[in-house]
């Protein structure tokens, strides 16, 4: 491989990382918020797909992709609120409800989204960050979605909120020790309801990115399990928003590996390389999920911990 080949692959990896990581980022930040409050919402995969479909449909009808993003966030908020409300009921398991919500969200999206599989809707604009390069092919790769920048800001914002605001501390207390939270006069169920709803909204935005930016259309196989992988990613990120960002980029780069190599003519093991993120999920879960070190960072109230 020539030097330009290596550079091309690296830049393609970077571009791919930024592009593919965005939905991971939004879903994992949402899940991070929810889990910090002491609940697991496995339903974010369904929220992601529903968000994608809603965003596409609203953009198609209104002509404004940003309205689509807002609608996706709203749909995600409602999905999260539904999860949170059901989990308030006594003797309800959040993981089981999450799986049900996953099917519900996906099913609802497929049912409502049938008419939108063919048409094309206005897509989100991109910010040409690669224009300073004199290689048009590479410049095109570095077109960055504004949503990625929003996600970037969200990761830092969430980190700041957890450290520096009363609301953030309250979420962490609730997730770590419900009894202590109640002793402080915190309404545990209400905090979790909000955390789950806001987490859902974030995942909905992740879905909007899928249908309105990359790949930029609506179809049934759009998510291919990214929502679930993002949930796993939160464990890898040890429930820290900034590590969620790093983990998302890492996953994005892994997903971009196959196409990047293909772009310089290496096609051997293409399908295998496309499976890289899934293999990575398995390895990460086996490596960090079982270790005591990771569990030490886990919010104490998570039902997977007890």
């Amino acid at each position, binding site marked *: 491989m020539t030097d330009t080949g290596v550079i091309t692959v690296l830049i393609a990896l970077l571009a791919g990382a930024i592009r593919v990581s965005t939905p991971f980022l939004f879903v994992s930040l949402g899940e991070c918020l929810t889990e910090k409050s002491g609940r697991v919402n496995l339903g974010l995969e369904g929220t992601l797909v529903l968000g994608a479909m809603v965003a596409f449909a609203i953009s198609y009808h209104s002509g404004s992709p940003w309205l689509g993003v807002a609608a996706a966030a709203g749909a995600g908020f409602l999905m999260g609120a539904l999860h949170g409300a059901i989990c308030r009921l006594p003797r309800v398991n959040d993981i089981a409800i999450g799986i049900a919500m996953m099917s519900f969200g996906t099913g609802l999206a497929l049912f409502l989204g049938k008419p939108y599989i063919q048409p094309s809707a206005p897509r989100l604009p991109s910010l040409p960050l690669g224009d300073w390069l004199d290689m048009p092919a590479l410049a095109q790769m570095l077109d960055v979605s504004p949503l990625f920048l929003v996600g970037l800001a969200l990761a830092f914002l969430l980190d700041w909120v957890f*450290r*520096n*605001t*009363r*609301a953030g*501390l*309250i979420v*962490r*207390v609730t*997730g*770590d*020790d419900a009894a*202590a*939270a109640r*002793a*402080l*006069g915190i309404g545990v169920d209400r905090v979790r309801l909000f955390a789950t709803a806001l987490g859902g909204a974030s995942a909905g935005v992740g879905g909007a990115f899928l249908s309105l930016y990359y790949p930029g259309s609506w179809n049934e196989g759009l998510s291919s399990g990214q929502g679930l992988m993002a949930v796993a990613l939160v464990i890898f990120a040890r429930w820290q928003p900034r590590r969620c960002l790093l983990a998302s980029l890492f996953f994005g780069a892994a997903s971009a590996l196959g196409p990047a190599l293909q772009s310089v003519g290496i096609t051997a093991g293409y399908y295998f390389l496309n499976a890289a993120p899934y293999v990575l999920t398995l390895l990460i879960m086996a490596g960090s999920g079982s270790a005591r070190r990771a569990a*030490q*960072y886990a*919010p*104490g109230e998570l039902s997977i911990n007890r």
Partner: protein
Amino acid sequence: MSNEALSFTSPGAIALEAIGLSKRFGSFKALDDVSLKVPAGEFHALLGENGAGKSTLVKCLMGFHRADEGAVLLDGREVSVRNPREAQGLGLGMVYQHFTLVPSLTAAENLVIARRDAPAVIDWAAERRRIEAFLDRTPFRVPLDRRVGALSAGERQKLEILKLLYLDQRFMILDEPTSVLTPAEADEILGHLKAMTERGEITVLMITHKFREVQAFADAVTVLRRGRVVGGGRGLSTREMATMMVGEAAATAGASGKAALPERRAMPASVGEPALELAGLFAEDDDGRPALRGVSLKVAAGEIVGIAGVSGNGQGALVETCCGQRPLSSGQMFVNGRDFLPTRRAFDAAGLFVVPEEPLKNAAVAGMSVADNIVFRRFEKPPLSRRGWWLDRRAIRAAGRELMTRFRVASPSPDTPIGALSGGNVQRAVLARELSAEPIAVLIVANPCFGLDFASAAEIRARIVAARNAGAAVLLISEDLDEVLDLSDTVAVISHGQIAYKAPIAEVDRGTIGIHFAGGSEGEQGAPLG
């Protein structure tokens, strides 16, 4: 932003007086006309055995319970405390036996979020300055930026106390604050608190079992026994306190159900090997600290050896190692002279039966039926199963029903989940399982009557004596000294994971036991016995 945390500089230990507090739980009188006076700036110790009513008393003060009768005065004014938040508002704070800090938050975050007026956006630089200024006025030092989960037990306990000071709670109730600490840590913390009381900054009411701490730090003592104040004052000797704590034998014989016990057959003159022998058992607790430190004990067939002691001195670990719930770090168990490893097969072969404390947690599967729980020891054997794998549900239900009648387990049906039964009925169901087999070579029983009413307790004690009369070697571990004295042929005291004292029942007197209860060699009476 309010300065709630800053007003600590104002002088102001609070005086507390309780007058004639009584509290009943059903037919059980937990507090009976208890009066207590703690002047401002006093370090007051509250002594008593388990179940003496210490916890009930402080819970009434803190508003967890409402006393049925009596009044509480703060600085001479009568107050009514309906819940712990109100207590907090009045300046009453409590350090509980379990930690109330949030483990994943740092010390500083724990302090700030505990404040009722925590700001929406926290300016950490300013907040830090304020906390550090506050810390400078207290003798305690804790790392502010480490997660509480990573702090040592001593640091956490200091932080619990700091939290009360930070929230300006100047009457402090400490519930066995040193049980998780090393003696050095305990002395440091109590010494600082003592100095603060002497400066008139706070008043302390401390529940404790440790005479040494009372002697070293307390200005005055109140001793509770069976819900009543049985003594107190200033400058009491360890022996006087111990006598008050364990009571006079004559005063309690009538109340403890001795009359209900069956006739005891004379113990057979011990011949040959003991039925149960524990040889130098060592084990660690969940945090890796030594829980058992060389427990050696022999129990002959037809003998009840009762182990008394203040809770938390290794009783739990002893029972857990005997029934295989906790690994031994060294030592050996022998049953009838043969090496015993706690496996299901070995229990069966040796005829060893165990009734652990909290049977619902330790000896039953809450979600399975009473009948299933009752046949746990033999469900894979005929007639309950065929060829060792095909369970005969009908036979199991019949066996369950039969034992439920014999042991008077009150349950709607043999199919009811055992978790739905009352404590006494769960205990009877587990006894039914452990005592119905023939023959019983060894029986290990822990706190068998804890939390049971009088009649159930008497019945269960009678069954234990009956097993002894039938030739079982019984090891009874109990936190109720009266129970140990009523049932045992030989009495032992466990202290700091060791057997500190052992004597035949005829030679036992309460005074000596009391001394060994409270840490053996720390008392007035010489070295611990074998």
